[in-house]
Each structure stands twice: as C-alpha cells, then as structure tokens.
C-alpha cells in the first residue's frame, strides 16, 4: 500500500481520486448486473442530465467550503433563479437570452448577499445561508404566484437553449461542465483569488496579518458560488423544463456530498475540483441506479446523508493522523 502511495503517477492524481474513479466504475458494474434496465445510452444520458446542474452547484459550493464556510442555500437559490427567469420568459415576454442572464444574475445577487454578511458582518455562514435559503424559496413563490413554471420544449421557437444539455445524442452539457471545471481549477490553483481563498480557509488571521483584504476575497468565494448556482439553474431547466416553487433543499446535501467526497475539506483550506466532479458523477449515477432498481428517491436521500457523514469523518481522521 505504501509503495502504491509513493508511485509518482498515483501521487500526482491522488489516491483519493483513483479510489473514487474505482467506486464509480464498480457502481456502474453493480447496477448493470442488478438491473437489465440499466444498460444503454438512455440511462447514461439521464444520469448525465442530473450530473450537469448538480456539477455546477457542487463546483460553486467547493469555493465556499474552501474558505471554511458552508452554503445551504444553493439548491433553493438554483430553483429561485430558474423560476424568476422562467417567469420573466413565459409571462413577461422577456427574450430567452435575457432570461438566461437573469438566471445568472439572481444567483450572483444571492452570492453577494451571503458573501457580504459572512465576510463583512461575520455572520456564521450556516446561519446566513439558512436564512437566504428561506428567502430564495419565498421570493420565488411570491414572484411566480406559487405557480410552477414550464420552460419551452425543444420543438418550441425558444427551445434552442435545451441543446446546452445535448444535441442529438451528443452530450454538450458534459463538455460545458468539464470546461467550467477546468476554469474553476485554474482560478482556484493559479490565480491570486484562488490562493487567497484557500489560504484564508486554512488560517484567516494569518492571511489578514499579511496585509491581505480577507473580507473581499471571502466575499468573492460566495459570489463565484452564486454565479455557478445561476448557471446550474439553466442546466436544470434545459434538462427538465419544469420547476416548482418551494423545493430545492435536497440538492444542497447532494452538492455538498459530491464536494467533500472529492477531497475538499469541510474545515477549509483544501479543495479539489477534479474530486468534486468525480463525486458529482457518483451521486448522479447513484440516483439513476436507485430509480432503475425501482426504489424511491427517499433511499437516495438516506444514502447521500450517509455519504456526507462518511466523507467528513474520513477528512477528520486524515487530519488527525497528520497532526
């Protein structure tokens, strides 16, 4: 085992991510064996649909968790974005392109809101994101008069946005998600913003005493998260078209699960974008597998709950061992 860990290639990719990839393949194999319905392109495309919006949520929350914070508003904010922009599109006749921008804008504003209170007012992220979760749900309901919103179908005049997810059988969404993942990884690892976000997650006071404006960079992490949540909303409607007000909280857990499973530490300071992406694929495959095996979504809730606990526990144990 030690030998494998010291192998330069393994070291570079990280043992954690290799294990996760193994889990992904194993899960696919098990689901395929248990259910003959599972094999085939259809299932994979369906799992991918789930992975796209969840992937953007997870990428976003990775930045927040890197600062040592947490955001429980991402799911409901995504729905709020999709509902407000969709309502603008369908009821106010706002052009599609503008509606998509509104979606990102709503996410951005929630990011500013969360980030401002966390960074400048030092409200605990847990509290402020719980509050904005409720605000997002309420706001969406008020705006849409508690009606669900149906975005246009592929065949409709305004249906082109759906090709963000797939064109024919080509998974466009996968390409876009991976491109964004690469961008996020560059931001996190090769820019000043990423350096400060990770550093302040590890030791905020030391970074402040280095003469760095920590408040600005901490707020930025929430803003990046908000923007990615706004984009997640677009991929949600592109995959499923219909959104209902009052939901979205279950995606918080799944996005955070993907993130921590991938090796991002809940204590802050350590984050892995590639890990997050693999984590998201595992969650998406899991949800698809559970449905294919004929279980209800409730089982998925239980399993993701357990995944979060196991992943966080593993993080705590490795941390302890290092000390």
């Amino acid at each position, binding site marked *: 085992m*030690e030998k494998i860990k010291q192998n330069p290639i393994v070291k570079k990719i990280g043992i954690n991510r290799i294990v996760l990839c193994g889990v992904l393949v194993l899960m696919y194999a098990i689901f395929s064996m248990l259910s003959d319905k599972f094999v085939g392109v259809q299932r994979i495309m369906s799992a991918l649909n789930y992975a796209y919006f969840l992937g953007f949520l997870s990428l976003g929350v990775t930045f927040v968790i890197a600062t040592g914070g947490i955001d429980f508003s991402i799911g409901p904010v995504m729905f709020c974005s999709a509902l407000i922009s969709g309502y603008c599109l369908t009821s106010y006749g706002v052009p599609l392109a503008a509606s998509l921008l509104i979606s990102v804008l709503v996410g951005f504003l929630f990011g500013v809101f969360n980030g401002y209170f966390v960074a400048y007012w030092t409200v605990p992220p847990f509290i402020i994101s719980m509050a904005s979760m409720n605000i997002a749900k309420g706001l969406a309901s008020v705006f849409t008069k508690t009606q669900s919103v149906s975005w246009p179908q592929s065949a409709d005049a305004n249906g082109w946005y759906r090709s963000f997810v797939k064109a024919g059988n080509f998974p466009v969404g996968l390409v876009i998600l991976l491109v964004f993942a690469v961008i996020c990884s*560059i931001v996190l690892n090769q820019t000043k913003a990423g350096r400060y976000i990770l550093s302040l997650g590890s*030791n905020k006071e030391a970074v*402040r*005493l280095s*003469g760095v404006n920590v408040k600005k960079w901490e707020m930025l992490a929430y803003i990046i998260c908000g923007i990615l949540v706004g984009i997640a909303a677009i991929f949600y409607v592109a995959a499923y078209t219909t959104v209902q007000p009052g939901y979205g909280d279950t995606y918080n857990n799944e996005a955070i699960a993907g993130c921590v499973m991938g090796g991002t530490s809940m204590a802050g*300071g350590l984050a892995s974008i590639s890990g997050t992406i693999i984590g998201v694929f595992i969650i998406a495959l899991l949800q698809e597998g559970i449905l294919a095996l004929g279980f209800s979504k409730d089982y998925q809730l239980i399993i993701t709950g357990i995944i979060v606990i196991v992943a966080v526990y593993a993080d705590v144990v490795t941390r302890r061992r290092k000390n």
Partner: protein
Amino acid sequence: MGDVILTMKDIDKSFPGVHALDHVNFEVKRGEVHALMGENGAGKSTLMKVLTGIYTKDSGSITFEGKEVEFHNTREAQDAGIVIVHQELNMLGHLTVAQNIFIGREFKKGIRIDDKKMNEEAAKLFEKLHIDIDPAETMSNLTVGKQQMCEIAKAISHEAKVIIFDEPSAALTEAEIEELFKIIRDLRQQQLGIVYISHRMDEIKVITDRVTVMRDGGYVGTLITDECTKDDIINMMVGRVIYEDPKTESAVPKDAPVVLKVEHLNAGKMVQDVSFELRKGEILGFSGLMGAGRTETARAIFGADPKTSGDIYIDGKKVEINNPQDAVKCGIGYLSEDRKRFGIVVQKSVAENSTMASMENFVKGLFINKSKENKVAQEYVDSLATKTPGVDQLVVNLSGGNQQKVVIAKWLIRNCDILIFDEPTRGIDVGAKNEIYKLMNRLAEEGKSIIMISSEMTEILRMSDRIIVMCEGRKTGEIDISEASQEIIMNMATREI
C-alpha cells in the same frame, strides 16, 4: 535522592521516514528533579508520549516501581501514578478551581454533584502544597501562574508518583516561577520523581538534580547538575559552542534618521499613552513582564487591533493605519508571538507562505507566476538557511525555527523596512535561536529597523541597541544598552506593581 522509581531502557520508536527514538535510556529516582533537555525535535516529547501511552514503543522496556509496564493511554498511566503537566493548560475557564481539579471524577450526592465536598478536598490539596488559591474561584479569574498550580494540584490528586513538567515556565512571570520552584522542591521532599522539560538553561541549574540530554532522537548522556556548567549541557545538545554575551553598546549612530515615531498611542486597557521612536538600523527591545501590553502595542501599531487614539509617523510623515493592509503598505511587517495562529498558513507550501504578503509582484496577467514565486522563495530559503526539503514542502512539516524563518522571508520579500518581531525565539531550540539572532543583526546592519518584543532578559540584553520597558500598559522606562542591566530593567518592569 532515593531509589530508582522509573526506568526506560533501550526505547526505540520509528514513524514512517523518521527514526524518532533510537535506543534511548532514561531513569528517574524518588525525590529527584530530572531535567530532560534537547533541541526541538530531539525526541523529548516523543519519549514522554511513549511513557504515558500516547505512542506505542517499537522495542525497549519501561520499568515502574520494579514492575515492567506498558500503558495504552494516558488514563492508564495516570491511574498507575504517572502524570503530565502540559505546557498548554487544559482548564475550563467557566468552571471553578475545584470543579476543574475533580473533572471526570466528581463527588456526588445522589445524582447531584457535591460541590461542597469538592471544595473541601481541593482546599486540603492546596494546603498540602502550600498554595494559596480559593477552590470556589472561577478558573478564568486566575492568572496563568495560578492556573498552572491548579494543574499541578490536579496531578497530585491522582496520587502521582512521577510528575512530568513540560515547559512549565514558558508563560510564567519571574515571581510565579519562584513559586513554582517552591512547589517542585516540596514535591521532591515528598519523594516524588519529577521530570522537568525546559529550554531555559538558568532554571535547569537552579531546580534540577540531574540532566539527561537527547539529540536527534538519540540518548547523549546524563549529568549531575551541580557538577556541570551551562556550556557542558549546551555542547551536548547542539555539539557546538554558543556565544551568549550581552551587547555593550549601541551599533546605531546617534544621528540615524527616525523611521517610525509613535505618539500617545492608546488602545484599550493594555496600551496607555505609549510614545517612542525607532531609528534606522536599530533593534529596539521591548521588555516587560507577561501582560505588560507589549504585544497589544505592536498589534495596535500594525492595525491588527483598533486603536482609540494616537499618531504614527513614518519617515517623518503622519500615516493612517486602520488595518494590517495599511501597515503593510507603510512597510511594516509583523512577526507574531504565536506563529501557528497568526504567522503561517499550515496547509500551504513554503513558497506560498513566503509570497503571501506580496502576491501582486508574482501575478502575471490573471495568473500567478509560479516559477518566479519558487525562484524567489528558494533565494530566501538559501539566504536564511531555512531547513526544508524544497519550497513546495508544506510549512506544517517544518520545525518551529524554520517556520519562523518562512514568516521572516514573507516580510523580507515584501521589502518591509520596519519589522516587529514579537517573541521571535519562543519555543525555538538553542541552535535555531542563535541563527535567528544572527539574522536579526544582519537585517539591522542592512538598514532594516526592528522592534523586538521579548520576555527573555538575556535575549533583550544580547540583541537590543536600546530598550523600552513596559508595565501594565504603560511605558515605564527607556534605556540605552550601554546603561542597561537586568536589575535596572526589572526595576522598571515592576515599577507600578
């Protein structure tokens, strides 16, 4: 001294990649104070952790009261009668003294906790130790020194036969240390075996009977304290002679320009009307007892804590410093007394920590220029002689002295001309200490101006060109090194007490 109560023989312990203990021998007699010395990383703590069951030894034997023992956790060691008094106190501030002492084994009356009985028992304990503390007092109201005495009382209450003191004096004032020694002598009288870990050479001479020295995980030797000199011990620890003479006169010309002037600085209770000047190329020592307000003064100047009033001039120009960003822009760097909390980002590499304060010089377009960053960090690793396998090493893996050098590099790379060193050698071993001293002298010669806060008198007398003494938030003295002596400074530091 009585018979041997504890023997550790041929103790061997390896961690992946490190041979932490290499056949170490150690023994303690009844009624003896036995010093365990060595540089940081020499293996003292590891040896004590093996003894108290935190680590399992690979080989060797531990004999306690004639029987071979092996403890699996501190609880087992405690029950057998071996107790550690840690450097960091493990007290709960909101509980009373008695509640702290009997935590985990409270006296009960039915299901209720019997505070009265606990107070009585604690009082008996204090009486035995000749300590004057009210058992019903809330812990957080006590001074650090008193808290430590409670910790000792707690150890005694476990029927301890061997007590290990891990750097007990690090946070104590001179008077408190005296009191601590009184208690230790008392315990010696009562035939307990005492292990005393400390970096302070003076204390070793005063309080211990024998000294065992470790180096690089190995056992170097055991001396009888009365028969050896300070230099003998230091030579065994580092294998080289260290010069420790005080400075006799200031190296700064009288007409050197004033780079920093602080006037009537006020910040809370701990900084009251502090004024002073710092000259170019000067090392200005800040002396005083624990809690004199020196760190608070430094933090107020640096903008780390808000100040209520006062003016700061840099090179004759008045500046507004409201936060550390302003201070860094003015060319001030602050090296904190607590580097783990305020100095380094442990999960980041040497290079990343080194450039933390001057990122903008390492950004090309949107991206960090990592090759430039590594190159500059490497230059400073070389020039400060930082011991690290490479600049990509995480600082958490470095020893205290080398972490300190990384923080110094951070400010040098930022090109700060005014450096505030707050207890720059705390928790650093003798060898590394000497290197930090040399480095500070070199920086001063190069024209940097240094404020050095230190609680060690020898350090103040050895390094400073001029000394400012503080007491209870006020400046109580200012003295040139040529006129300074330990007595004069101590007199100023205790003026108002």
